[in-house]
């Protein structure tokens, strides 16, 4: 019925994949996708005509995730205490040897996972990524470079050196 709905429908699998890679949990991922779609429908008029729909949706989803994450940050310590999971810190510093690329990927921090998914998997341009993150192009490239090094080291089973902690 609505033209936008059809376009949204096609992108839902990609949004769900991105959401899972952020939340690492399928059901909260779907909640995230749902609120992203709501916001997209409400704010459709605000979208700049020339910007890519997929990049626009990714940016809404990413922001919603960060907001939710910020809100729950005060519970993070408690969560970490019970589960031993530490989402708030760049996880590269953990000395875990990854068995597969996916496991290595899961150990990266939030922004690194988003960056690699956008660039390596979805094939977004650096410029689109720069707009999503609202940072200069050069910053995207240096963060991407660090994300890639981190993934490389984790996949190789190298124990990450403390120097990798200087992640911005």
């Amino acid at each position, binding site marked *: 019925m*609505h033209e936008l709905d059809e376009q949204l429908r096609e992108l839902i699998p990609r949004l769900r994949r991105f959401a899972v890679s952020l939340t690492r949990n399928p059901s909260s991922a779907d909640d995230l996708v749902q609120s992203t779609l709501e916001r997209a429908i409400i704010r459709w008029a605000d979208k700049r005509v020339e910007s890519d729909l997929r990049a626009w949706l990714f940016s809404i989803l990413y922001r919603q995730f960060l907001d939710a994450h910020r809100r729950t940050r005060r519970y993070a310590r408690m969560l970490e205490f019970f589960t031993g999971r530490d989402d708030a810190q760049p996880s590269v510093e953990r000395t875990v040897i990854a068995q597969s690329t996916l496991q290595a990927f899961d150990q990266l921090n939030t922004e690194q996972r988003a960056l690699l998914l956008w660039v390596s998997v979805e094939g977004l341009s650096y410029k689109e990524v720069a707009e999503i993150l609202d940072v200069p192009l050069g910053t995207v490239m240096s963060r991407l470079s660090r994300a890639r090094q981190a993934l490389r080291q984790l996949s190789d089973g190298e124990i990450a050196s403390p120097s990798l902690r200087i992640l911005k």
Partner: protein
Amino acid sequence: MISLPPSERDLHAYVDHQLLESDRRVLETYLAAHPDVAAQVHAWQHDAQLLRAALGGALQQPANPDLDPALIRQRIKRQSRRHLAKAAVLLIAVSLGGIGGWHAREVSQPAQLPMADAMQAFRLFAQDGIMPADYKGQGGGTMQAWLDRYFNQAHRLPDLSASGFTPVSGRLLTTEQGAAAMVLYEDPQGRRISFYIRPPGPENGFLPRGSRSADGLQAQYWSGAGYNYAVVSPADQPTPAMLKF
């Protein structure tokens, strides 16, 4: 145009197919002559490939009907209609303030139910939460000071702390006879009780101490020091033992 030796950024741009065609060719020639750099680039390419393969499966999840855009659109419409309706009720109630206000409501109901406005205020503000507080306080002292700005020598805010309830927010309301206010108390379980104060209306007059319940709410009311008061809480909520004013 890239310069040689290539920067690390150029190498990444190459991996991501974001170089100009001419630059890409220059870089490929360079890589052919520098196997160590080429090995690094291939490792990144390989990682990207593995990542695409690993995440490919995530595209094949069974559909979730809750995510259908048409459905979400309908839900948004319903919600905004509901909000509009609520806003309209509030607007009417507020804008009629000069002519009849809450009083108009009371007339349309079997009249003379004491402190119906207090119960209505509780419903709107404590249960539906549709308007932000005019005043948020820490502790009873500051809330009392806020209330004293509007009400002269009225009865003090009841101290419900023995039952775990403390004042959290205050709202000013209007009645035909002048300003009214509702102070909301909350206990650690999130249960709510309101204290309502208003000038006595011509209908309401001064009230004998009493209580009544309606639509799932209970109100205790009394008069004193020139005002009428009510304490309103949900009927299913055990009334704290304190209520001795």
